[in-house]
C-alpha cells in the first residue's frame, strides 16, 4: 500500500469518525452483550440458548432463498427484455423499475398490505366479481410476496447493467459459431452477465434474511423471522443479551454469504477484470 498524504487522511477523517461511532462501537456493544449475562459477567449462556431459535433461523433462510430465487426468475428475463429495447424505452423502463424505490420501504410494505388485506383492494374487487376472498396477509406466501415486491428492483438493476455492458459482438460471435437463440443465452449471455446476477442475489438475499417489517405487516404478526425475534428481544432490557447473540450469528451468516458471492464474482469472471470486480456493489 502506498502511504497516503496528510490531505488524503484529512479527507477521510469525517468518515472514519462516523464509522467508528456508528459502526465499530455498536459492533463492540453487540459482541459485549452477546458474551455477558444480565449482570455483565462473561457467559456463554446466550449462545447456548440460541438452539431454541433454530427453527426461526431455518425459516428466515428458507424465505430469503425462495424470495431470491423468484426475484432472479422474474428479474433476469425482465432485465434481458429491457436491454433489448431502444435507449428511449430503456430509460422509461428503468424509471418504472426504480420508481418504487423512491418510496420508503415501510410505506411500500404498508401499501402492499392495504392492497392484499382481508378488506383490501384486491379482496373487495374479488368480492364484487362474486369470487371468494384470498387470504394472503398472515400467510407464508404473503411474507415472501412482500420480500419479492420490495426487493425485485435490486435484482433487476445490476443484471440490467451487466446486460447493457455486454458487447453485442459476443452475441454475434455465438450466432456465427452456430448457436440458436437459446444456446446463445445459456452459453454466452448468462455466463457473461453472472456478475450482475451475483450482485442482484446478494442485494436481495441480505435484506430478505434480516427483514422484520415485512414479516410483521404481511405476516400479521403470525410469522416470526430472525429480524422480528431480534427486535422483540431488544425491546425488553432483560433479553438484550440473547438478542445480541442472535444479531451476532446473523452478522456472521451474512458475512459468510457475501464472502461466498464475492469469491464467485472474483474467480469466475475473468471477463470483468476491466470493469472492476464483478460483484462490485457489496463489500
Amino acid at each position, binding site marked *: 500500500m502506498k502511504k497516503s498524504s496528510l490531505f488524503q487522511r484529512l479527507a477521510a477523517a469525517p468518515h472514519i469518525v462516523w464509522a467508528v461511532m456508528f459502526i465499530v462501537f455498536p459492533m463492540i456493544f453487540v459482541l459485549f452483550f452477546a458474551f455477558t449475562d444480565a449482570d455483565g459477567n462473561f457467559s456463554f449462556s446466550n449462545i447456548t440458548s440460541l438452539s431454541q431459535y433454530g427453527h426461526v433461523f431455518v425459516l428466515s433462510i428458507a424465505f430469503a432463498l425462495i424470495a431470491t430465487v423468484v426475484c432472479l426468475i422474474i428479474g433476469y428475463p425482465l432485465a434481458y427484455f429491457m436491454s433489448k429495447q431502444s435507449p428511449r424505452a430503456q430509460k422509461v423502463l428503468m424509471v418504472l423499475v426504480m420508481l418504487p424505490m423512491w418510496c420508503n420501504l415501510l410505506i411500500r410494505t404498508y401499501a402492499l398490505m392495504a392492497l392484499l388485506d382481508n378488506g383490501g383492494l384486491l379482496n373487495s374487487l374479488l368480492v364484487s366479481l362474486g369470487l371468494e376472498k384470498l387470504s394472503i396477509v398472515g400467510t407464508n406466501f404473503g411474507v415472501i410476496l412482500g420480500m419479492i415486491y420490495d426487493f425485485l428492483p435490486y435484482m433487476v438493476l445490476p443484471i440490467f447493467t451487466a446486460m447493457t455492458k455486454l458487447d453485442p459482438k*459476443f452475441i454475434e460471435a455465438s450466432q456465427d*459459431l452456430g*448457436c440458436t437463440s437459446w444456446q446463445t443465452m445459456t*452459453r454466452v449471455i448468462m455466463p457473461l452477465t453472472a456478475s450482475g446476477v451475483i450482485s442482484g442475489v446478494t442485494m436481495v438475499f441480505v435484506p430478505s434474511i434480516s427483514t422484520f417489517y415485512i414479516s410483521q405487516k404481511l405476516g400479521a404478526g403470525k410469522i416470526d423471522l430472525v429480524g422480528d425475534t431480534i427486535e422483540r428481544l431488544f425491546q425488553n432490557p432483560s433479553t438484550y443479551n440473547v438478542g445480541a447473540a442472535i444479531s451476532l450469528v446473523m452478522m456472521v451468516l451474512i458475512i459468510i454469504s457475501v464472502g461466498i458471492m464475492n469469491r464467485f464474482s472474483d474467480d469466475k469472471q475473468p471477463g470483468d477484470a476491466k470493469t472492476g470486480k464483478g460483484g462490485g456493489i457489496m463489500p
Partner: protein
Amino acid sequence: MNNEKLIELRGVSKSYDGETVLCSIDLDIHEHEFITLLGPSGCGKTTTLRIIGGFVTPDEGKVYFDGKLINEIPPHKRPVNTVFQRYALFPHLNVFENIAFGLRIKKVPEDQIREQVKEMLAMVNLRGFERRRVDSLSGGQQQRVAIARALINKPKILLLDEPLGALDLKLRKDMQVELKRMQRQTGITFIFVTHDQEEALSMSDTIVVMADGKIQQIGTPEKIYNEPENAFVADFIGESNILDGVMLEDFKVRFSGHTFECVDKDFAPKEKVDIVVRPEDVDVVAVDKGMLTGTVSSVTFKGDYYEIIVDVGGFKWMLETSDYVAPEATIGLHIEPEAIHVMKKSEYSGKFGDYSSFSDELEHLADPEEEEE
C-alpha cells in the same frame, strides 16, 4: 476464376436511417478464392460482409449461396464463419474452450474435439496455449485464436472484418503471410475487409474496390493497379498522377500540352479522358530530351528512392527516382507509352491526382483508422 460461384449478390441495397450504405451491389465470389473488399471508411465494405454473414438483412436485392437464396437464413445456419474486428473471443472461456465452441454446439464427441483443437492450435502456431485465459494473450495471439475458432468449423467461407487493424506493422506483415498460407492450406474462400491497399494488393486473388456504397472495380491486384477503372481507384490504390487529357485517336493522347503515344484505343474521337501515370513510371531526363519540362519543388529521401514533386505548368507531379535531383532544378520528364493509362471520365474526375497540397502528414491524417460500424 474457373471455380464454382459460391456467393452471388444481385442488386443488394441497404440504408440506415435514410442514409444509403449500399447501392445495388452485384458481386460474385468463387470457391477457393481470396477476395478483398477494399475501400475507405463508410464505403459499405463491412455492411457487405455482414450481409454475407447474415447479421444484416438487405433492404433490396438477393443473396445466393451455392445457387440457393439465403436472404432469410439466420447466421447460425449459414456455412460461414467470421473473424471479428476486435476478435470477440469469449472472456469466460479459455483458449481451448473458445476454439472448441463451435464443435460443442454441434455435439461433436469429446475425443474428436480434443484432436481437432490440437490440430487448429498447431496450424495457428499456438501449441500449448490450451489452458490460457484469452485476456492474458497478446493481440496477435488473440487474432490466431479467433482464426482457429472460426476455421475449426470447416466453413465454406471465412469472413475477416479488418482482422489486422489492431496489430502493429511488423505483426501485421507476418499475419498477412500466415493468413495467405492458411487460405491455401485449407482451400476455404476468404472474404477479407480492409482499408489498407497494400494489404489488399499483397494478399488477394481478387480485389473489390468500393466507394460510396458502390463497387468501383473488381479485378486482380495487378489489373487494379495497372488499369484502374476511374480516378477514385487510381488514387486509392498506390500513388497516381491523374491529369485531364483528350484522346486524339487510337494510341494518341494529348495532355499537359504534349501529344503522347499510348497503348489505349476505342475511345470516341476527341473524347475527354482521365490520364493516370504512376510516379515510378516517369523517367527524369535532361531538359532537351524531355517530353515535358518542370521545376522541382521538393525532394524527399525515402530510403530506396527519392520522392520528387515537380511543377509542370502549374500541375504538380509526383515522381519516384533513384537519382538525386536538386530542388529548384529544371528537369525533363520522359514517359513510355506503356506507362500511360487512359480512363473514362467519371464522377471522381478532377477530385484526385494533383500533388500541389501534398504532404505525408495530411495523407496520414486522412487515413481512416476506424471502419464504420
